[in-house]
């Protein structure tokens, strides 16, 4: 088995730890009640100094998940269970008052969003936006603050005169780089990146991704990088988590997930990535992602799964470690995956079984 062997699941160098997190949209319009189980029991961690990639298609719940971990939840979205704990907080983030959360935001926890235009105030110069976001966190007099920002920009190899520009005067790629600088200026421990390169052109995308990777390595912050594009994950994530219909179905070191995906959904996603130089026919997966207001019973992927068995229709597979650092929630992945068996199986034993 190739791939980096990472520390055990209970490492206390986890910056973010969620446990059984559940967030549902509970709506009632004119008498119609709907409960959309967008995030349905997710237990995972992001370790120190790593980029955790979260993959999944639209309406799989990944956007809801990051709203939940950032405590950016508003009704009708409600957190109905579970906990979200950060290493820099002594309590669950939901136990904080709104004022306490304001202190945390940006200084310890920041975001890089998809639409850079919606983060940068279009009627204010970039410098003012920096002041709006970061000034009160850095506790420096105005002059020293400006110097610190300029030093930060030069460290990220951005020209200092962008401070005087308005957002619309910068290109899309440049704006996104400004957003990255903005998100890292307070040296937060944790950064949430939500599809930061999706709206960018191919050439610019590569530059911005490189910048994100280098920035993360330079400052040692942890990052959760959300995108549906698996190729981006291959180039930026250390560990990769695949979400399907509100649940985490596979998680492991990136190279390993690409080389040896254990969940049929992941395998299909990886197989359907087109690559230059390959023109052989690729097969499509039938069906469509389920409606989260009325998901299938048991494993939510079973209607589309080529390996579906009887048990998949009845019971929910538990995320189980089948190889070092590599977890899967699938009954077909290994005959030993069954909810009645303790979740932590001897990894070596599981590997043995598969070789047969």
């Amino acid at each position, binding site marked *: 088995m190739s791939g980096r062997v990472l520390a055990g699941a209970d490492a206390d160098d986890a910056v973010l730890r969620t446990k059984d997190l559940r967030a549902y949209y509970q709506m009632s319009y004119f008498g119609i009640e709907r409960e959309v189980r967008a995030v349905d029991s997710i237990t995972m961690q992001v370790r120190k100094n790593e980029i955790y990639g979260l993959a999944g298609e639209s309406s799989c719940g990944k956007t809801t998940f990051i709203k939940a971990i950032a405590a950016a939840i508003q009704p009708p979205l409600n957190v109905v269970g579970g906990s979200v704990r950060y290493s820099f907080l002594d309590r669950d983030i939901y136990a904080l008052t709104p004022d306490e959360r304001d202190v945390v935001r940006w200084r310890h926890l920041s975001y890089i969003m998809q639409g850079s235009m919606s983060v940068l105030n279009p009627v204010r110069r970039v410098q003012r936006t920096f002041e709006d976001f970061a000034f009160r966190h850095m506790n420096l007099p105005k002059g020293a603050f400006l110097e610190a920002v300029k030093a930060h920009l030069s460290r990220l190899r951005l020209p200092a005169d962008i401070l005087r520009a308005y957002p619309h005067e910068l290109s899309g790629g440049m704006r996104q780089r400004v957003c990255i600088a903005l998100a890292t200026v307070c040296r937060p421990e944790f950064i949430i990146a939500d599809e930061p390169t999706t709206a960018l052109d191919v050439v610019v995308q590569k530059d911005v991704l490189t910048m994100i990777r280098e920035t993360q390595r330079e400052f040692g912050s942890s990052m959760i990088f959300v995108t549906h594009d698996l190729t981006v994950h291959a180039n930026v994530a250390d560990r990769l988590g695949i979400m399907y219909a509100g649940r985490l179905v596979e998680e492991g070191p990136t190279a390993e997930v690409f080389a040896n995906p254990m969940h049929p959904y992941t395998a299909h996603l990886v197989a359907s990535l087109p690559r230059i130089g390959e023109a052989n026919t*690729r097969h499509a997966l039938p069906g*469509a992602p389920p409606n989260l207001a009325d998901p299938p019973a048991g494993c939510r992927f079973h209607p589309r799964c080529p*390996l579906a068995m009887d048990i998949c229709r009845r019971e929910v597979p538990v995320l189980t470690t089948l190889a070092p650092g590599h977890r899967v929630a699938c009954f077909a992945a290994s005959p030993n995956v069954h909810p009645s068996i303790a979740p932590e199986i001897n990894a070596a034993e599981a590997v043995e079984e598969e070789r047969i």
Partner: protein
Amino acid sequence: MTGASLLEVDHLTKSYARGGVFGRQSFDAVRDVSFSLPIEQPEVFAIIGESGSGKTTLARMILNMIAPTAGSIRFSGGNLTALRRRSDRLGFMKQVQPIFQNPFEAFNPLKRVDRYLLISAKNFLGARSQAERERAADDALNKVGLSLAEIRRRFPHELSGGQLQRVAIARALISEPSLLVADEPVSMVDASLRMSIVNLFRRLRDDLGVSIIYITHDLATAYYISDRIIIMRKGEVVESGPARAVLDNPQHEYSKLLKESLLSPDPSGEGVLSGSSVATRQVRGNAVHFDSEARGERIE
């Protein structure tokens, strides 16, 4: 018979004027683009470009939605500017149909999706009775792998992006066009549903003889299905030729830059899908069967 092309784009230019009364500047969205599509053989013709390259403007001119500033477009020998009467325009639209980028925007969210299919059947095929229209709609839907029964009376939000895009393609196919202009048709569709649509385009060319202008920024899918390709940058064509040849061996600097910027799914070179898990083997083509009673596995 030589020289008869399905579509002939000749030194096409589109300029826009910016600025006020003093200091008007013009900028060219599309500058001096020429290419042609043969009539004898249907092909998938890819136009690659990033945002601002003019590819969408070019598509709209081909669809006769915008008038060019200079140059001409001829479809089946007739110049597009000669289409004045409604009947002429209808005749053109019967032959040339668009597929838009965002399937959710291509349908009115307040109306049911089968409505557009039935209306197209009535307007382009002259189908008089409801039964005739439904039959035409069902035929078109079957070509894309759906059926009228599945989507009857559904609203756009009840379908997934992949399904909706296929309905949009079915709508375009109802009039039995000879040319489809697809502007980034899969960029807004989920990764797991994308391949089915791309494969569909292949089938449309091979089985139904429809030529497709496939506009995208994604080099990899262009490689997968196109026959010929042009690469556009800032309104101009920088490189053109047979798809595999151009993409395997780009000559122009910009083409090379595009190819280099492509992310590889295997940056560490460890080998994609080289493992031995059950799922990996299944997707690589080994049939794996499960006995649902016992928990063992049998490999055929």
